[in-house]
């Protein structure tokens, strides 16, 4: 929050007004971060602040028979110890279902469990003490007696007809089931020249934000008010939740997010400990801080993916994919996450499969299955990497079956660039995409023909290189149809308040939030251009429910497309107000004036008439000199909700170039290529870094990252030494090229780009490895593609 003015110390370089949007301008707030002046929740302390630690379940599923906290209560520095019952008196339960997901079910949740634990690592008892160390010491004194319950450790166990039910009274272990069917699926399969099949498995991985989850709850009993300093993406969502579940009027709950050390979807879900900390502060009547350590993050942050997909495609003799049929089974943990649910990922998988292509028929069946592991939910590019890998794996098989080049088979199947608007068989409405142009651009960008020639030459020398490509669409700019209609109080609209200050500077308070993507930077660029000032006098403030207007904030790639449009419209409104006041002062017509670089000028000819600072001075301090009846509103509030198309789809294509060492199973990622079309680009520097960061998260999923469990439901690699994440030496340079097809639903025309990198990179990597191994008759059908799995595919053991 609080991007500072980016005024250089020397003379201000003169930025041409109206040219901020589209330029690779560095982020003003990054200067604070490179100066060590970041202010993260982990850094904050409040007077009389206490620290919480949690006693966690060692069992994946067990009944709680007895809890003894007396010794912990008496330990040095301990302020209070709370169990599930203590917090249940303050907090109402929550249920992670959405109304529009018919038949969805999930057990009610409380901050701490009353009588049963459902995953290993679940917090059971909270200890609040003068320091985190004292709280942890006292945690060791808590005695809990457990009785083992049967563990649902994998999909097959949970889906077996006689499986023990995870929730007593539920008819089965399904959280949600859904199916789709469109077109003559069976006929097309019966008559197709080829039927290709795939059986793919996608490991569980997790967000691993470098700053773990952190919050400080500060309840003030004297006024029955709560302030929460929270490392979150979505302050208003938490304001609503804390208010409703703890019975504090909304207006007395403030959620403020300062600098946030990474989020990627991890920091918008409700976590039990976070909910507990609110109650702990109410009980202690003092501020309480909780920061997950890395081990706690691994067992309690949401995990993601964990899908098993069986898929087949009917392929014509010409390589045209006629139909697809898929079954997705996904395991989500013991309950569905609140308030966004754990069913969205599977739902998006079955709806996004085949999305870039012209299919004639499609059938899908989805099972979302409970199990005794950490909850899964939305993480960067929800469902996209799975849908993309399934589709693109089938595409490669279609190419192989028909003898076509991977580029050619895509060219024959992609939705043509002149076929829009159109609708997918799963109901997605596409306004205008650029798949064909992106495909052509990627081929040039990769220097594809040269890579193929080089591949053949190196193969002769026993060097196995592979080339993989994968096309994608990315869901961005969601309308209220996404959560609102399901009954979740998650806003699709955003709000901005923009003000000319008495000195003639500009303050913009906006509901979209910053976690390093550059939200504040691009909002500043947009306001500067559409108001008519230079960027360096615009201050953008985000992330505090007490300060900014209500809005959805940053998720599902809506910051630029929705937040940006909000800022644009607000800036336009404010400009009209400024010109009205200026016209009153100058006895001119507002339409004859313009605001350029903070000067009111004659629209015709551009002669400077009055500075913005002078307009502000008169409006604020000498309104007596304005003509009677002048409405001098130099602050405007504006809200914008997307309408029109339900989503603005970003599209693009990735290429991955790898070398597989068939002796060790190690893969060197030589280079990765992305062509993406996120509509109007506000700041290419930021778009490119977003895409690169996204690619690296997708390559992490492809090669390294996996939450591994044993049969007892214990996470066996919950540390940064055991859970592998991409580091600089494993990552390639990433070449990016852009297409720009602005959405016409907004004036700004921007779509999201934050998930474009993750959406297709693991699919491209999977295809690249399989391309490298094709001559050896080996195939990978599981990610991450670890050396062991590669060697296994090669028959090395």
């Amino acid at each position: 929050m609080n991007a500072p003015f980016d005024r250089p110390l020397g003379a201000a370089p003169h930025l041409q007004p109206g040219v901020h949007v589209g330029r690779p301008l560095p982020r003003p707030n990054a200067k604070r971060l490179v100066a060590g002046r970041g202010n993260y929740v982990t850094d904050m302390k409040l007077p009389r602040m206490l620290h919480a630690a949690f006693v966690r379940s060692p069992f994946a599923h067990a009944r709680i028979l007895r809890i003894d906290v007396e010794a912990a209560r008496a330990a040095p520095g301990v302020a209070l110890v709370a169990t599930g019952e203590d917090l249940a008196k303050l907090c109402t339960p929550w249920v992670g279902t959405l109304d529009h997901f018919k038949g969805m079910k999930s057990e009610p949740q409380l901050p701490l469990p009353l009588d049963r634990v459902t995953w290993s690592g679940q917090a059971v008892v909270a200890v609040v003490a003068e320091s985190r160390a004292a709280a942890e010491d006292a945690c060791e004194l808590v005695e809990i007696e457990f009785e083992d319950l049967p563990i649902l450790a994998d999909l097959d166990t949970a889906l077996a007809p006689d499986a023990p039910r995870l929730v007593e009274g539920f008819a089965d272990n399904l959280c949600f089931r859904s199916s789709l069917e469109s077109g003559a699926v069976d006929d097309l399969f019966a008559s197709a020249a080829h039927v290709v099949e795939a059986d793919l498995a996608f490991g569980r991985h997790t967000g691993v934000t470098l700053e773990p989850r952190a919050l400080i709850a500060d309840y003030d009993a004297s006024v029955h008010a709560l302030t929460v300093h929270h490392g979150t993406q979505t302050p208003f969502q938490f304001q609503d939740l804390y208010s409703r579940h703890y019975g504090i009027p909304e207006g007395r709950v403030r959620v403020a997010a300062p600098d946030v050390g990474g989020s990627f979807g991890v920091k918008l879900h409700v976590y039990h400990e976070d909910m507990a900390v609110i109650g702990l502060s109410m009980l202690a009547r003092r501020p309480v801080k909780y920061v997950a350590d890395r081990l706690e993050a691994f067992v309690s942050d949401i995990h993601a993916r964990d899908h098993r997909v069986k898929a087949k495609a009917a392929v014509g003799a010409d390589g045209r994919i006629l139909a697809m049929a898929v079954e997705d089974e996904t395991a989500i943990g013991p309950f569905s996450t609140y308030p966004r649910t754990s069913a969205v990922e599977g739902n998006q998988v079955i709806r996004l499969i085949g999305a870039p292509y012209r299919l004639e028929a499609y059938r899908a069946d989805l099972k979302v299955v409970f199990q005794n592991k950490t909850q899964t939910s939305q993480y960067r590019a929800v469902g996209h990497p799975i849908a993309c890998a399934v589709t693109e794996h089938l595409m490669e098989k279609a190419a192989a079956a028909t003898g076509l080049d991977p580029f050619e088979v895509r060219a024959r199947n992609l939705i043509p660039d002149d076929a829009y608007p159109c609708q997918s068989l799963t109901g997605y409405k596409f306004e205008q995409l650029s798949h064909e142009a992106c495909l052509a651009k990627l081929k040039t960008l990769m220097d594809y023909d040269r890579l193929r020639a080089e591949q053949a030459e190196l193969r002769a020398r026993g060097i196995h290189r592979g080339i993989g490509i994968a096309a994608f669409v990315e869901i961005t700019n969601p309308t209220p149809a996404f959560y609102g209609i399901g009954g979740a109080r998650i806003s699709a609209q955003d709000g901005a308040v923009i003000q000319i200050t008495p000195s003639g500077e500009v303050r913009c308070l906006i509901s979209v939030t910053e976690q390093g993507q550059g939200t504040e930077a691009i909002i500043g660029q947009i306001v500067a251009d559409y108001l008519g000032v230079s960027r360096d006098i615009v201050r953008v403030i985000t992330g505090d429910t007490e300060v900014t207007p209500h809005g959805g904030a940053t998720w599902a790639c809506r910051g630029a497309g929705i937040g940006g449009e909000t800022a644009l419209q607000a800036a336009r409104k404010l400009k009209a107000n400024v010109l009205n006041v200026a016209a009153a002062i100058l006895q001119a017509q507002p339409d004859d004036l313009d605001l350029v670089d903070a000067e009111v000028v004659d629209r015709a000819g551009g002669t400077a008439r009055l500075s913005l600072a002078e307009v502000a001075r008169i409006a604020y301090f000498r309104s007596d000199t304005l003509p009677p009846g002048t409405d001098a509103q130099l602050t405007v509030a504006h809200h914008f909700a997307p309408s029109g198309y339900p989503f603005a789809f970003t599209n693009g294509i990735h290429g991955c170039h790898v070398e597989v060492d068939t002796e060790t199973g190690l893969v060197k990622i030589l280079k990765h290529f992305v062509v993406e079309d996120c509509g109007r680009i506000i700041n290419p520097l930021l778009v490119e870094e977003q895409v690169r960061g996204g690619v690296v998260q997708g390559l992490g999923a492809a090669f390294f990252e996996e939450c591994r469990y044993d049969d007892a439901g214990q996470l066996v690699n919950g540390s940064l030494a055991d859970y592998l994440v991409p580091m600089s030496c494993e990552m390639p340079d990433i070449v990016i090229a852009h297409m720009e097809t602005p959405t016409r639903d907004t004036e700004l025309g921007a779509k999201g780009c934050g998930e474009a990198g993750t959406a297709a990179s693991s699919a491209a990597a999977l295809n690249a490895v399989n391309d490298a191994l094709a001559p050896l008759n080996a195939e990978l059908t599981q990610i991450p593609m670890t050396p062991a799995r590669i060697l296994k595919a090669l028959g090395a053991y």
Partner: protein
Amino acid sequence: MAGAVPLTLTVNGVETARMVAPRTTLADFLRTDLELTATHVGCEMGACGACLVLLDGVPVHSCLVFAVQAQGQRVETVEGLVASGALAPLQQAFHERNALQCGFCTPGMLVNAHALITKGTVPDREEIRDAISGNYCRCTGYEAIVDAIEAAARKLNGEGAE
């Protein structure tokens, strides 16, 4: 503080004396006792590099060092290196190249990069990737960080930017 022991060391050029519990890590000591919160903690096991500081001029993981082990030594954190201007070329290059997103890894990156580029030679990209291979960044693709370090190294070692 039960069992606290005296500790004297020099932090960012200032001689500092405190009582600390022997189990306090240098990272916690810097962040909590001295409020030098630029030093971040991401893993507490030497795997992420967010907590790197200079101890007698050498980058060390402050999460793996007990504060008492720094007795009599010189500690420099990002706050001190910024104040002395030592990080200026890196700060500028990181900003211009947008070699950070959330910025949580950045202080550790800067400390490591500083140690690398002040060796007196301009490292190539491979060497830079190798040198920061213990610094985890979840947000960027590392490429911008490599670019920024390369640019700062060239500037510092008297080569113009390309």
